[in-house]
Protein backbone atom coordinates (compact mmCIF):
# COMPACT_ATOMS: atom_id res chain seq x y z
CA UNK A 1 0.00 0.00 0.00
CA UNK A 2 1.01 3.61 0.14
CA UNK A 3 -0.07 6.84 -1.35
CA UNK A 4 0.59 7.44 -5.00
CA UNK A 5 -0.33 10.53 -7.00
CA UNK A 6 -2.69 9.95 -9.93
CA UNK A 7 -3.50 13.33 -11.45
CA UNK A 8 -5.32 16.52 -10.65
CA UNK A 9 -9.10 16.30 -10.18
CA UNK A 10 -9.59 18.59 -13.15
CA UNK A 11 -7.82 16.07 -15.36
CA UNK A 12 -10.30 13.29 -14.51
CA UNK A 13 -13.80 14.65 -15.07
CA UNK A 14 -16.93 12.52 -14.34
CA UNK A 15 -17.24 9.58 -16.76
CA UNK A 16 -13.53 9.43 -17.50
CA UNK A 17 -10.81 7.05 -16.44
CA UNK A 18 -7.07 6.99 -16.21
CA UNK A 19 -4.90 3.91 -16.35
CA UNK A 20 -1.55 4.19 -14.68
CA UNK A 21 1.29 2.03 -13.51
CA UNK A 22 1.79 1.87 -9.75
CA UNK A 23 4.51 -0.30 -8.26
CA UNK A 24 4.55 -2.46 -11.35
CA UNK A 25 0.78 -2.92 -11.37
CA UNK A 26 -1.58 -1.48 -13.93
CA UNK A 27 -4.49 0.22 -12.21
CA UNK A 28 -7.53 2.05 -13.57
CA UNK A 29 -8.89 5.08 -11.74
CA UNK A 30 -12.46 6.03 -12.61
CA UNK A 31 -14.54 9.10 -11.89
CA UNK A 32 -18.15 7.91 -11.60
CA UNK A 33 -20.30 10.97 -11.13
CA UNK A 34 -17.75 12.62 -8.86
CA UNK A 35 -16.88 9.46 -6.97
CA UNK A 36 -13.39 8.14 -7.53
CA UNK A 37 -12.74 4.40 -7.67
CA UNK A 38 -9.64 2.41 -8.54
CA UNK A 39 -9.41 -1.19 -9.65
CA UNK A 40 -6.69 -3.51 -10.88
CA UNK A 41 -6.42 -3.54 -14.65
CA UNK A 42 -6.37 -7.31 -14.91
CA UNK A 43 -9.38 -9.59 -15.22
CA UNK A 44 -9.17 -12.64 -12.95
CA UNK A 45 -10.62 -14.77 -15.74
CA UNK A 46 -7.90 -14.79 -18.40
CA UNK A 47 -5.90 -11.70 -17.53
CA UNK A 48 -7.62 -9.31 -19.91
CA UNK A 49 -7.10 -5.53 -19.62
CA UNK A 50 -10.20 -5.06 -17.49
CA UNK A 51 -10.03 -1.28 -17.25
CA UNK A 52 -10.34 -0.87 -21.01
CA UNK A 53 -13.83 -2.36 -20.74
CA UNK A 54 -17.15 -0.66 -21.12
CA UNK A 55 -18.73 0.91 -18.03
CA UNK A 56 -22.42 0.25 -17.63
CA UNK A 57 -25.14 -0.34 -15.06
CA UNK A 58 -26.36 -3.44 -13.33
CA UNK A 59 -29.40 -5.17 -14.83
CA UNK A 60 -31.43 -7.02 -12.23
CA UNK A 61 -34.86 -8.63 -12.15
CA UNK A 62 -37.13 -10.04 -9.51
CA UNK A 63 -39.17 -11.97 -12.07
CA UNK A 64 -38.70 -13.07 -15.69
CA UNK A 65 -39.27 -10.27 -18.13
CA UNK A 66 -38.22 -7.53 -15.76
CA UNK A 67 -35.18 -5.37 -16.56
CA UNK A 68 -34.29 -3.03 -13.71
CA UNK A 69 -31.23 -0.87 -14.13
CA UNK A 70 -29.08 0.14 -11.17
CA UNK A 71 -25.70 1.61 -10.38
CA UNK A 72 -25.08 3.17 -13.73
CA UNK A 73 -21.38 3.77 -14.22
CA UNK A 74 -20.25 1.39 -11.51
CA UNK A 75 -20.27 -1.86 -13.51
CA UNK A 76 -17.15 -2.51 -15.49
CA UNK A 77 -17.27 -5.23 -18.16
CA UNK A 78 -14.06 -6.87 -19.24
CA UNK A 79 -13.28 -6.02 -22.87
CA UNK A 80 -12.49 -9.67 -23.59
CA UNK A 81 -15.37 -11.84 -22.32
CA UNK A 82 -17.69 -9.31 -20.79
CA UNK A 83 -17.46 -10.43 -17.17
CA UNK A 84 -19.08 -7.82 -14.95
CA UNK A 85 -17.35 -6.23 -11.95
CA UNK A 86 -18.41 -3.61 -9.47
CA UNK A 87 -15.81 -0.88 -9.71
CA UNK A 88 -16.32 0.07 -6.06
CA UNK A 89 -15.53 -3.34 -4.59
CA UNK A 90 -13.87 -5.30 -7.36
CA UNK A 91 -16.42 -8.06 -6.87
CA UNK A 92 -17.79 -9.87 -9.89
CA UNK A 93 -21.54 -9.73 -10.35
CA UNK A 94 -21.63 -13.49 -10.95
CA UNK A 95 -20.20 -15.53 -8.11
CA UNK A 96 -18.95 -12.44 -6.20
CA UNK A 97 -17.48 -14.32 -3.28
CA UNK A 98 -15.16 -16.39 -5.40
CA UNK A 99 -14.47 -13.94 -8.19
CA UNK A 100 -13.03 -10.52 -7.57
CA UNK A 101 -10.28 -8.16 -8.58
CA UNK A 102 -8.39 -5.90 -6.27
CA UNK A 103 -10.04 -2.52 -5.68
CA UNK A 104 -8.09 0.34 -4.17
CA UNK A 105 -8.87 3.33 -2.03
CA UNK A 106 -8.81 6.68 -3.77
CA UNK A 107 -8.54 10.02 -1.95
CA UNK A 108 -8.55 13.62 -3.06
CA UNK A 109 -6.12 15.81 -1.18
CA UNK A 110 -4.37 19.13 -1.80
CA UNK A 111 -1.20 18.61 -3.77
CA UNK A 112 1.86 18.22 -1.57
CA UNK A 113 3.77 21.47 -1.00
CA UNK A 114 6.39 22.87 1.27
CA UNK A 115 5.53 25.38 3.90
CA UNK A 116 5.95 28.98 2.70
CA UNK A 117 6.42 32.17 4.62
CA UNK A 118 5.87 35.79 3.84
CA UNK A 119 8.99 37.59 2.73
CA UNK A 120 9.67 41.32 2.63
CA UNK A 121 12.50 43.52 1.42
CA UNK A 122 13.55 46.59 3.29
CA UNK A 123 16.57 48.69 2.44
CA UNK A 124 18.05 45.98 0.22
CA UNK A 125 17.59 43.49 3.03
CA UNK A 126 15.30 40.40 2.76
CA UNK A 127 13.25 39.44 5.78
CA UNK A 128 11.28 36.26 6.34
CA UNK A 129 8.22 36.42 8.62
CA UNK A 130 7.61 33.42 10.82
Amino acid at each position, binding site marked *: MGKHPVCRVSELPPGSRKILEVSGRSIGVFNVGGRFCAIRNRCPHQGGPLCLGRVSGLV*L*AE*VPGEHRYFDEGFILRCPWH*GWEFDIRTGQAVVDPHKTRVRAYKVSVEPPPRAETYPVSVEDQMIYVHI
Partner: protein
Amino acid sequence: MVKAGRRPGLVDCDVHPNIGSIKDLYPYLPRRWVDYIEETGFSQIPQNPYPKGANRGIRLDAVPAGGVAGSDLGLMRAQLLDAYQVEFAILNPEHSYRLNFLPNADFAAALASAFNDWLIVQWLEKDERLLGSAVVTTQDPEQAVKELKRVGTHPKIVQVLLPAGAQRPYGQRYYWPIYRAAEELGLVIGIHFGGTGVSTGHPPTPVGWPSFYIEWHTLMTQAFQAHLVSFICEGVFEQFKGLKVTLIEGGFSWLLHVIWRLDKNFRSLRSEVPWLKRFPSEYVPEHFRFTTQPMEEPEKEADLLGVMRMMGAEQLLMFASDYPHWDFDDPVYALPRGLSEGARAKILRENALSWYGLNGQASGLSGK
Protein backbone atom coordinates in the same frame (compact mmCIF):
# COMPACT_ATOMS: atom_id res chain seq x y z
CA MET B 1 -41.96 -65.75 -17.64
CA VAL B 2 -40.36 -63.79 -14.82
CA LYS B 3 -36.82 -62.82 -15.64
CA ALA B 4 -34.47 -63.60 -12.82
CA GLY B 5 -31.96 -61.11 -11.59
CA ARG B 6 -31.10 -59.00 -8.60
CA ARG B 7 -33.44 -56.13 -9.05
CA PRO B 8 -34.64 -53.66 -6.48
CA GLY B 9 -38.01 -53.12 -8.12
CA LEU B 10 -38.78 -51.20 -11.25
CA VAL B 11 -40.58 -48.11 -12.47
CA ASP B 12 -40.63 -47.88 -16.25
CA CYS B 13 -40.88 -44.23 -17.28
CA ASP B 14 -41.65 -44.68 -20.96
CA VAL B 15 -44.05 -47.26 -22.37
CA HIS B 16 -46.12 -46.85 -25.50
CA PRO B 17 -49.65 -48.08 -25.83
CA ASN B 18 -51.02 -47.72 -29.32
CA ILE B 19 -54.40 -47.40 -30.95
CA GLY B 20 -55.16 -50.16 -33.43
CA SER B 21 -56.50 -47.55 -35.82
CA ILE B 22 -57.89 -44.05 -35.65
CA LYS B 23 -61.32 -45.65 -35.25
CA ASP B 24 -60.37 -46.67 -31.71
CA LEU B 25 -60.70 -43.02 -30.81
CA TYR B 26 -64.24 -42.63 -32.19
CA PRO B 27 -65.97 -43.36 -28.87
CA TYR B 28 -64.11 -40.41 -27.36
CA LEU B 29 -64.47 -37.93 -30.21
CA PRO B 30 -67.28 -35.44 -30.79
CA ARG B 31 -69.52 -36.50 -33.67
CA ARG B 32 -68.28 -33.59 -35.75
CA TRP B 33 -64.72 -34.91 -35.83
CA VAL B 34 -65.72 -38.52 -36.48
CA ASP B 35 -67.61 -37.24 -39.48
CA TYR B 36 -64.63 -35.15 -40.55
CA ILE B 37 -62.31 -38.16 -40.38
CA GLU B 38 -64.76 -40.28 -42.36
CA GLU B 39 -65.33 -37.59 -44.94
CA THR B 40 -61.70 -36.67 -45.48
CA GLY B 41 -60.26 -40.12 -45.20
CA PHE B 42 -57.87 -38.84 -42.53
CA SER B 43 -56.07 -41.96 -41.44
CA GLN B 44 -52.97 -41.00 -39.63
CA ILE B 45 -51.47 -38.40 -37.41
CA PRO B 46 -48.45 -36.64 -38.98
CA GLN B 47 -45.58 -39.10 -39.06
CA ASN B 48 -41.95 -38.71 -38.15
CA PRO B 49 -40.14 -37.91 -41.38
CA TYR B 50 -37.93 -40.96 -41.93
CA PRO B 51 -38.82 -44.57 -42.53
CA LYS B 52 -37.72 -46.27 -39.35
CA GLY B 53 -34.74 -48.36 -40.30
CA ALA B 54 -35.00 -51.13 -37.77
CA ASN B 55 -38.05 -53.40 -37.81
CA ARG B 56 -40.38 -50.57 -38.77
CA GLY B 57 -39.62 -48.99 -35.43
CA ILE B 58 -41.02 -51.75 -33.28
CA ARG B 59 -39.95 -54.92 -31.56
CA LEU B 60 -41.27 -57.51 -33.94
CA ASP B 61 -42.08 -59.93 -31.13
CA ALA B 62 -44.34 -57.27 -29.61
CA VAL B 63 -46.88 -57.40 -32.44
CA PRO B 64 -50.05 -59.17 -31.32
CA ALA B 65 -51.86 -61.44 -33.78
CA GLY B 66 -53.77 -59.25 -36.20
CA GLY B 67 -52.89 -56.06 -34.34
CA VAL B 68 -50.24 -53.41 -33.93
CA ALA B 69 -47.47 -53.30 -31.36
CA GLY B 70 -48.59 -51.72 -28.12
CA SER B 71 -52.30 -52.21 -28.73
CA ASP B 72 -52.76 -55.29 -26.56
CA LEU B 73 -52.68 -54.97 -22.77
CA GLY B 74 -52.37 -58.74 -22.39
CA LEU B 75 -49.19 -58.85 -24.42
CA MET B 76 -47.82 -55.79 -22.62
CA ARG B 77 -48.41 -57.56 -19.32
CA ALA B 78 -46.69 -60.70 -20.50
CA GLN B 79 -43.71 -59.04 -22.13
CA LEU B 80 -43.16 -56.13 -19.79
CA LEU B 81 -45.27 -55.63 -16.68
CA ASP B 82 -45.19 -59.21 -15.41
CA ALA B 83 -41.92 -60.22 -17.03
CA TYR B 84 -39.97 -57.55 -15.21
CA GLN B 85 -42.18 -57.20 -12.15
CA VAL B 86 -42.88 -53.59 -13.00
CA GLU B 87 -44.37 -51.61 -10.12
CA PHE B 88 -45.39 -48.69 -12.27
CA ALA B 89 -45.23 -47.99 -15.97
CA ILE B 90 -45.85 -44.51 -17.31
CA LEU B 91 -47.72 -44.66 -20.60
CA ASN B 92 -47.04 -42.21 -23.38
CA PRO B 93 -49.52 -43.01 -26.14
CA GLU B 94 -47.93 -43.72 -29.50
CA HIS B 95 -48.50 -40.98 -32.12
CA SER B 96 -50.40 -38.72 -29.72
CA TYR B 97 -47.68 -36.14 -29.21
CA ARG B 98 -47.39 -35.52 -32.93
CA LEU B 99 -50.86 -34.01 -32.85
CA ASN B 100 -48.84 -30.87 -32.19
CA PHE B 101 -48.15 -30.80 -35.92
CA LEU B 102 -51.70 -30.91 -37.20
CA PRO B 103 -52.46 -27.55 -38.79
CA ASN B 104 -56.03 -27.53 -37.52
CA ALA B 105 -55.75 -26.61 -33.83
CA ASP B 106 -59.30 -27.55 -32.92
CA PHE B 107 -59.10 -30.95 -34.59
CA ALA B 108 -55.77 -31.55 -32.86
CA ALA B 109 -57.21 -30.59 -29.46
CA ALA B 110 -60.21 -32.88 -29.98
CA LEU B 111 -57.94 -35.79 -30.88
CA ALA B 112 -55.77 -35.08 -27.84
CA SER B 113 -58.83 -35.25 -25.60
CA ALA B 114 -59.84 -38.50 -27.27
CA PHE B 115 -56.39 -39.97 -26.73
CA ASN B 116 -56.53 -39.01 -23.07
CA ASP B 117 -59.95 -40.57 -22.53
CA TRP B 118 -58.92 -43.68 -24.46
CA LEU B 119 -55.78 -43.94 -22.31
CA ILE B 120 -57.75 -43.65 -19.09
CA VAL B 121 -60.52 -46.05 -20.05
CA GLN B 122 -58.60 -48.64 -22.07
CA TRP B 123 -55.39 -48.71 -20.05
CA LEU B 124 -55.10 -46.82 -16.79
CA GLU B 125 -58.32 -48.15 -15.33
CA LYS B 126 -57.53 -51.71 -16.38
CA ASP B 127 -54.25 -52.27 -14.57
CA GLU B 128 -53.21 -50.71 -11.31
CA ARG B 129 -49.57 -50.52 -12.39
CA LEU B 130 -50.29 -48.19 -15.27
CA LEU B 131 -49.90 -44.42 -15.00
CA GLY B 132 -50.35 -42.00 -17.82
CA SER B 133 -49.29 -38.83 -19.56
CA ALA B 134 -52.02 -36.54 -20.78
CA VAL B 135 -51.17 -35.25 -24.21
CA VAL B 136 -51.87 -31.61 -24.98
CA THR B 137 -51.55 -29.70 -28.20
CA THR B 138 -49.71 -26.42 -28.16
CA GLN B 139 -51.24 -24.86 -31.25
CA ASP B 140 -53.62 -23.19 -28.83
CA PRO B 141 -52.29 -23.11 -25.25
CA GLU B 142 -55.70 -22.10 -23.89
CA GLN B 143 -57.21 -25.36 -25.11
CA ALA B 144 -54.25 -27.23 -23.67
CA VAL B 145 -54.94 -25.70 -20.27
CA LYS B 146 -58.61 -26.60 -20.53
CA GLU B 147 -57.70 -30.18 -21.32
CA LEU B 148 -55.29 -30.40 -18.41
CA LYS B 149 -57.96 -29.12 -16.06
CA ARG B 150 -60.31 -31.73 -17.45
CA VAL B 151 -58.08 -34.82 -17.19
CA GLY B 152 -55.21 -33.68 -14.99
CA THR B 153 -57.01 -34.42 -11.74
CA HIS B 154 -57.37 -38.10 -12.60
CA PRO B 155 -55.24 -39.89 -9.97
CA LYS B 156 -53.37 -41.89 -12.58
CA ILE B 157 -52.46 -38.97 -14.82
CA VAL B 158 -49.03 -37.92 -13.60
CA GLN B 159 -47.56 -36.04 -16.54
CA VAL B 160 -48.19 -33.73 -19.47
CA LEU B 161 -46.85 -35.07 -22.75
CA LEU B 162 -45.10 -32.83 -25.27
CA PRO B 163 -42.94 -33.81 -28.25
CA ALA B 164 -39.25 -32.91 -28.50
CA GLY B 165 -39.97 -31.26 -31.85
CA ALA B 166 -41.63 -27.89 -31.31
CA GLN B 167 -42.53 -24.70 -33.08
CA ARG B 168 -40.49 -22.72 -30.56
CA PRO B 169 -38.29 -23.50 -27.56
CA TYR B 170 -40.35 -24.68 -24.61
CA GLY B 171 -39.11 -22.08 -22.15
CA GLN B 172 -40.85 -19.23 -23.95
CA ARG B 173 -43.78 -17.44 -22.34
CA TYR B 174 -46.11 -18.68 -25.05
CA TYR B 175 -46.23 -22.00 -23.17
CA TRP B 176 -46.49 -20.63 -19.65
CA PRO B 177 -50.24 -21.11 -19.23
CA ILE B 178 -49.58 -24.84 -19.67
CA TYR B 179 -46.87 -24.78 -17.02
CA ARG B 180 -49.03 -22.83 -14.62
CA ALA B 181 -51.76 -25.45 -14.95
CA ALA B 182 -49.27 -28.33 -14.65
CA GLU B 183 -47.75 -26.89 -11.52
CA GLU B 184 -51.17 -26.33 -9.96
CA LEU B 185 -52.24 -29.86 -10.79
CA GLY B 186 -48.97 -31.41 -9.63
CA LEU B 187 -48.17 -32.75 -13.10
CA VAL B 188 -44.68 -33.25 -14.45
CA ILE B 189 -43.93 -31.94 -17.95
CA GLY B 190 -42.72 -34.89 -20.02
CA ILE B 191 -40.92 -34.09 -23.25
CA HIS B 192 -40.66 -37.14 -25.43
CA PHE B 193 -38.38 -38.05 -28.33
CA GLY B 194 -39.91 -37.38 -31.73
CA GLY B 195 -41.77 -34.70 -33.55
CA THR B 196 -38.76 -33.09 -35.20
CA GLY B 197 -39.13 -32.51 -38.91
CA VAL B 198 -42.82 -33.40 -38.81
CA SER B 199 -45.48 -31.77 -40.95
CA THR B 200 -45.80 -28.08 -40.00
CA GLY B 201 -42.64 -28.18 -37.86
CA HIS B 202 -39.11 -27.04 -38.55
CA PRO B 203 -36.41 -29.15 -40.20
CA PRO B 204 -35.07 -31.66 -37.69
CA THR B 205 -31.66 -30.04 -37.32
CA PRO B 206 -30.42 -26.44 -37.44
CA VAL B 207 -28.57 -27.33 -40.63
CA GLY B 208 -31.58 -28.73 -42.37
CA TRP B 209 -32.56 -32.22 -43.38
CA PRO B 210 -30.20 -35.14 -42.83
CA SER B 211 -30.64 -37.99 -45.27
CA PHE B 212 -31.15 -40.91 -42.95
CA TYR B 213 -33.10 -42.17 -40.00
CA ILE B 214 -29.84 -42.93 -38.22
CA GLU B 215 -28.98 -39.24 -38.34
CA TRP B 216 -32.44 -38.07 -37.32
CA HIS B 217 -32.50 -40.48 -34.38
CA THR B 218 -28.99 -39.57 -33.23
CA LEU B 219 -29.50 -35.83 -33.50
CA MET B 220 -32.78 -35.81 -31.58
CA THR B 221 -30.64 -34.77 -28.61
CA GLN B 222 -30.30 -31.30 -30.12
CA ALA B 223 -33.98 -30.61 -29.57
CA PHE B 224 -33.71 -31.63 -25.92
CA GLN B 225 -30.69 -29.41 -25.43
CA ALA B 226 -32.52 -26.46 -26.93
CA HIS B 227 -35.48 -26.98 -24.60
CA LEU B 228 -33.38 -27.42 -21.46
CA VAL B 229 -31.44 -24.24 -22.17
CA SER B 230 -34.64 -22.39 -22.99
CA PHE B 231 -36.43 -23.50 -19.80
CA ILE B 232 -33.54 -22.25 -17.71
CA CYS B 233 -32.74 -19.01 -19.53
CA GLU B 234 -36.34 -17.87 -19.87
CA GLY B 235 -36.68 -18.08 -16.10
CA VAL B 236 -39.42 -20.70 -16.13
CA PHE B 237 -38.17 -22.05 -12.81
CA GLU B 238 -38.13 -18.62 -11.22
CA GLN B 239 -41.74 -18.21 -12.27
CA PHE B 240 -42.89 -21.78 -11.55
CA LYS B 241 -40.69 -22.85 -8.70
CA GLY B 242 -42.32 -26.26 -8.36
CA LEU B 243 -42.28 -27.22 -12.04
CA LYS B 244 -40.63 -30.52 -12.96
CA VAL B 245 -39.56 -31.57 -16.44
CA THR B 246 -38.71 -35.10 -17.54
CA LEU B 247 -36.69 -35.42 -20.73
CA ILE B 248 -37.73 -38.75 -22.17
CA GLU B 249 -35.58 -40.68 -24.60
CA GLY B 250 -33.33 -37.72 -25.26
CA GLY B 251 -30.00 -39.01 -23.99
CA PHE B 252 -28.16 -37.57 -21.03
CA SER B 253 -24.37 -37.45 -21.43
CA TRP B 254 -24.73 -34.20 -23.39
CA LEU B 255 -25.85 -32.52 -20.17
CA LEU B 256 -22.27 -31.92 -19.07
CA HIS B 257 -21.32 -30.20 -22.29
CA VAL B 258 -24.41 -28.02 -22.29
CA ILE B 259 -24.30 -26.88 -18.67
CA TRP B 260 -20.57 -26.28 -18.71
CA ARG B 261 -21.00 -24.08 -21.74
CA LEU B 262 -24.08 -22.39 -20.32
CA ASP B 263 -22.49 -21.66 -16.95
CA LYS B 264 -19.42 -20.24 -18.63
CA ASN B 265 -21.55 -18.01 -20.82
CA PHE B 266 -23.55 -16.91 -17.80
CA ARG B 267 -20.50 -15.14 -16.39
CA SER B 268 -20.30 -13.09 -19.56
CA LEU B 269 -23.91 -12.75 -20.60
CA ARG B 270 -25.81 -12.76 -17.32
CA SER B 271 -27.33 -9.34 -17.90
CA GLU B 272 -29.46 -10.77 -20.74
CA VAL B 273 -31.20 -13.07 -18.26
CA PRO B 274 -31.11 -11.07 -15.02
CA TRP B 275 -33.94 -13.08 -13.46
CA LEU B 276 -31.66 -16.06 -12.97
CA LYS B 277 -30.67 -16.16 -9.32
CA ARG B 278 -28.24 -19.06 -9.62
CA PHE B 279 -25.83 -20.52 -12.09
CA PRO B 280 -27.88 -22.14 -14.88
CA SER B 281 -26.61 -25.58 -13.97
CA GLU B 282 -27.98 -25.19 -10.46
CA TYR B 283 -31.54 -25.37 -11.76
CA VAL B 284 -31.02 -28.83 -13.21
CA PRO B 285 -31.18 -31.15 -10.18
CA GLU B 286 -34.33 -29.54 -8.85
CA HIS B 287 -36.22 -29.28 -12.13
CA PHE B 288 -35.03 -31.96 -14.59
CA ARG B 289 -34.87 -35.71 -14.80
CA PHE B 290 -33.66 -37.76 -17.74
CA THR B 291 -34.84 -41.19 -18.76
CA THR B 292 -32.19 -43.75 -19.60
CA GLN B 293 -33.34 -45.30 -22.85
CA PRO B 294 -31.75 -45.47 -25.37
CA MET B 295 -28.88 -46.17 -23.01
CA GLU B 296 -25.57 -44.79 -24.13
CA GLU B 297 -23.15 -47.63 -24.76
CA PRO B 298 -19.57 -46.50 -25.31
CA GLU B 299 -16.89 -49.07 -25.93
CA LYS B 300 -15.52 -48.74 -22.40
CA GLU B 301 -18.10 -48.96 -19.67
CA ALA B 302 -15.77 -47.01 -17.38
CA ASP B 303 -16.15 -43.98 -19.65
CA LEU B 304 -19.90 -44.06 -19.22
CA LEU B 305 -19.59 -44.51 -15.47
CA GLY B 306 -17.27 -41.50 -15.39
CA VAL B 307 -19.75 -39.33 -17.23
CA MET B 308 -22.55 -40.57 -14.99
CA ARG B 309 -20.57 -39.69 -11.89
CA MET B 310 -19.73 -36.22 -13.21
CA MET B 311 -23.31 -35.39 -14.10
CA GLY B 312 -24.84 -36.74 -10.91
CA ALA B 313 -26.69 -39.47 -12.80
CA GLU B 314 -27.54 -41.30 -9.63
CA GLN B 315 -29.97 -38.52 -8.84
CA LEU B 316 -30.97 -37.42 -12.35
CA LEU B 317 -31.68 -40.62 -14.27
CA MET B 318 -34.86 -42.71 -14.30
CA PHE B 319 -35.12 -46.00 -16.11
CA ALA B 320 -37.28 -46.33 -19.21
CA SER B 321 -37.72 -49.32 -21.49
CA ASP B 322 -39.52 -47.67 -24.44
CA TYR B 323 -41.50 -50.88 -24.92
CA PRO B 324 -42.51 -51.89 -27.60
CA HIS B 325 -40.10 -49.94 -29.77
CA TRP B 326 -37.13 -51.39 -31.62
CA ASP B 327 -34.63 -49.58 -29.41
CA PHE B 328 -36.16 -51.00 -26.23
CA ASP B 329 -33.88 -51.34 -23.19
CA ASP B 330 -34.03 -54.38 -20.99
CA PRO B 331 -33.75 -53.31 -17.33
CA VAL B 332 -31.65 -56.33 -16.50
CA TYR B 333 -28.96 -55.51 -19.04
CA ALA B 334 -29.20 -51.85 -19.92
CA LEU B 335 -27.49 -50.17 -17.00
CA PRO B 336 -23.70 -50.42 -16.70
CA ARG B 337 -22.70 -53.41 -14.62
CA GLY B 338 -20.24 -51.33 -12.64
CA LEU B 339 -23.00 -49.19 -11.15
CA SER B 340 -23.35 -49.52 -7.38
CA GLU B 341 -26.41 -51.30 -6.03
CA GLY B 342 -27.54 -48.05 -4.45
CA ALA B 343 -27.31 -46.11 -7.69
CA ARG B 344 -29.04 -48.91 -9.57
CA ALA B 345 -31.94 -48.85 -7.13
CA LYS B 346 -32.30 -45.11 -7.51
CA ILE B 347 -32.26 -45.20 -11.28
CA LEU B 348 -34.52 -48.23 -11.65
CA ARG B 349 -37.04 -47.20 -9.06
CA GLU B 350 -36.53 -44.67 -6.31
CA ASN B 351 -35.91 -41.56 -8.40
CA ALA B 352 -39.13 -42.04 -10.33
CA LEU B 353 -41.15 -42.79 -7.21
CA SER B 354 -40.10 -39.55 -5.63
CA TRP B 355 -40.22 -37.47 -8.83
CA TYR B 356 -43.80 -38.51 -9.59
CA GLY B 357 -44.87 -38.58 -5.96
CA LEU B 358 -45.68 -42.30 -5.87
CA ASN B 359 -45.69 -44.70 -3.03
CA GLY B 360 -43.79 -47.89 -3.61
CA GLN B 361 -46.74 -50.10 -4.37
CA ALA B 362 -49.25 -49.95 -7.14
CA SER B 363 -52.27 -49.87 -4.88
CA GLY B 364 -50.93 -46.96 -2.89
CA LEU B 365 -50.96 -44.04 -5.28
CA SER B 366 -50.23 -40.97 -3.29
CA GLY B 367 -51.85 -37.65 -3.91
CA LYS B 368 -49.95 -35.77 -6.57
